[in-house]
């Protein structure tokens, strides 16, 4: 039994280890690295070396330091979006699935509306007005992410709420909170968790996209902004600079999103499809 679990949970350990290594790597860069992410600490466009592991950008600012700052900024935003999505999507989904009737119809309508709206154009338009405020960006991304989570959660809640043992508990006078907590949570929370985790990766990407388009806070150190600035450097592809200035944030972005998405996918398979 124990061996089987260890075998089955291998990918999880691998993914978590990957994320941990990324975090530690960037934590070192944010906390212990002597270079500042905002002030020049070397010559312009220095190649990677002992003083600057990943070189410097056109202003002489250390790229590793910038990447590190950007990681926590992106991760923080992603996690905030995930949490907000879990709260809104999970809450509304459970409510709709459990109560049914009018509540469900209302939530369904909202879900359909938010699913139907093309996300990126709206994000761009709204980002142009309010993109400078990170809290608003978080809110915007969450607003466009909760609908699928709510839909899945509602479906799961609905199926779980019709089980005989839930009916039995209700007959013995269990209130909604008791039933949600004791009989539904174990089935429904994984759905919410997986949905929220998927949102983390998506949110990082969307924020980067907004930043790349120049619609986010220009003073924040974000990977999207770094990519934006590097790619706008005239003739970057005719030099070697892209190898560290552009490739580093792209690689960091890809690795981070890859890990979170794979984790979400794995948990989905593990918790939802394999569950009873």
């Amino acid at each position, binding site marked *: 039994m124990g061996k089987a679990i260890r075998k089955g949970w291998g990918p999880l350990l691998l993914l978590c280890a990957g994320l941990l290594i990324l975090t530690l790597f960037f934590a070192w860069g944010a906390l212990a690295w002597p270079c500042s992410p905002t002030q020049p600490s070397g010559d312009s466009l220095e190649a990677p070396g002992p003083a600057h592991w990943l070189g410097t950008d056109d202003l002489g600012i250390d790229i590793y330091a910038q990447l590190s700052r950007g990681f926590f900024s992106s991760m923080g935003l992603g996690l905030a979006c995930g949490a907000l999505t879990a709260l809104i999507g999970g809450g509304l989904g459970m409510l709709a699935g459990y109560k049914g009737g009018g509540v469900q119809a209302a939530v369904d309508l909202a879900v359909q509306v938010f699913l139907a709206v093309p996300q990126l154009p709206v994000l761009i338009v709204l980002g142009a007005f309010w993109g400078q405020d990170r809290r608003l960006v978080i809110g915007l991304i969450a607003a466009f992410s909760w609908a699928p989570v709510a839909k899945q959660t509602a479906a799961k809640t609905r199926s779980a709420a019709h*089980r*005989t*043992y839930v*009916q*039995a*508990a209700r*007959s*013995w*006078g*269990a209130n909604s909170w*008791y039933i949600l907590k*004791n*009989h539904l949570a*174990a089935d429904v929370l994984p759905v919410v968790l997986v949905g929220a985790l998927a949102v983390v990766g998506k949110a990082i990407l969307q924020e980067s996209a907004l930043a790349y388009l120049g619609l986010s806070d220009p003073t924040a150190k974000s990977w999207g902004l770094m990519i934006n600035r590097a790619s706008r450097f005239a003739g970057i592809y005719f030099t070697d600079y892209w190898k560290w200035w552009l490739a580093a944030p792209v690689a960091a972005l890809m690795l981070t999103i890859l890990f979170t998405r794979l984790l979400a996918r794995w948990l989905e398979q593990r918790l939802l499809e394999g569950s*009873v």
Partner: protein
Amino acid sequence: MTPRVRLEGLTARYPGFCLGPVSLDLAAGECLAVVGESGSGKSTLARAAVRLLDKDAAPGGRVWLDGQDLTALPPKELADWRMARFSIGFQNAHGWLNPSLTLGQHLEELLARRYPRAERAGRAALLAGEVGLEVRDLGLLPRQASGGMVQKTLLALALALDPDFVVLDEPTGALDEVSRRRVLELIRRRAAAGTAFLLVTHDVTVARALCARSCVLYGGRVMELAPTAELLADPRHPYSRGLIRSFPELYPQRDLWGIRPGPGPREGECPFRGRCTQCMPACATGVPELAEIGPGRQVACVRGGIAAALTARDIAKQFDGKPVLTGANLRLDCGETVALVGPSGIGKSTLAAILAGFLPPDSGRVLVNGEAADFARLHRAPGGVQLLWQDSFAALNPRFTVERAVAEPGVLAKLWASPDQQHERVVQLLRQVGLDPTPQLLARPTGALSGGQAQRVAMARALVLRPAVLVADEPTAQLDASGRANLLRLLKGMQNAEGCALLVVTHDPHAARKIADRVLLLKHGRLQPVDPDKIEQELEDAQ
């Protein structure tokens, strides 16, 4: 018209036992049976009726024979009347005979009180022939005679002087079938000639053969008095029902279950209260008197006899325009097991769900304890209605441990003040349903149980609130033959011990026959009673 015999408020008292007051009337030529378990006071009543109780027993009340109060007779006159006007035949035969006299001498000694010597031998032989003794048997001493012969002799003695009132205590207890029939015939003949018989017996078949009326005695009191045929077919007192349903002669197919054990009679309250399946607080406040409940029928019960635990009237239900139930009527009495049979897909589970309050009927009413059922309350409170679902696994949260699952209704009803109380009750219930409550089992998730275990856990959970009505929907559907047999016994045993009314929905005729007091067939959306022997046939017809 004055009755031939009137027993008026007969009482007696022994340490730990109290008779009466018992009042009974017997018309001339009537046989009245007194039935009851051992220790119910039958023999004491028999002796009280013929003034044979010791002074220690503080006999009270009066016995009237043809208008004469026997208790007022001076001792000498009473002695003259004894055996001549009234007599008694005992069951424990040997002790009443003189070991040094032959059976014939006993008879002649008694006949000497009325007949000249010359007639005695002839009369003795005649009597012997009537009760089925050979003339040569009369020469035997009691110790040489068999139990049957002695019993016949005692009967002959009781009838020797043609008394008007005869009390017989287990007159056929020691007899074989042929002798038994002959003795019953004799009693019938004598009754036709005008003798009143008080027959004390624990054998209802004797009562059925001889007596137009029977009374049921428990704890020294008459619980029910009714025409014998009606009493046997439709007993109205919980004790009579339990007693009558314990007779294999009357229920050859069914598993037998005695009346559940419990505290015996106590003074100042209904004597049957400790074992009754329908007792209420009021039952403890006084001794119920016999009261008329129908023509010739009397019952001593605070609730006026067996009460209906669950009544369904004209239940109708349709699904998608297709009628499933079209006016089903049902009465489920307290402490009774009823099987509801029918082919698969006929609507049994639908009816079960309606009766248990989990599905509203389109029309019709469900009454519990005589009131419109408020299931929101009945499901939550002790003494209500519980449903045992068909699929136990679906009815148990697979993530809950066994202890948590069993305790859930009690926890929600706030039944226990401490976790220890909860644990104790869960352990007790698991034992009751035949599971060994080890810590490992208590901590096992219900999803990891076997089918039989899950069924038992679900049953234990249904019992937490001590329901008055338990509806079990196909309780054996998921089990193999052995598991099924175990579960049926368990279910019935639990019903017997808890005293709840049990409605078992099943498509299995054997199971129905084995455990049910009555069987109902669901056919064309209605319920009809069905003879347990003909279930298979009826099921085929219904399909």
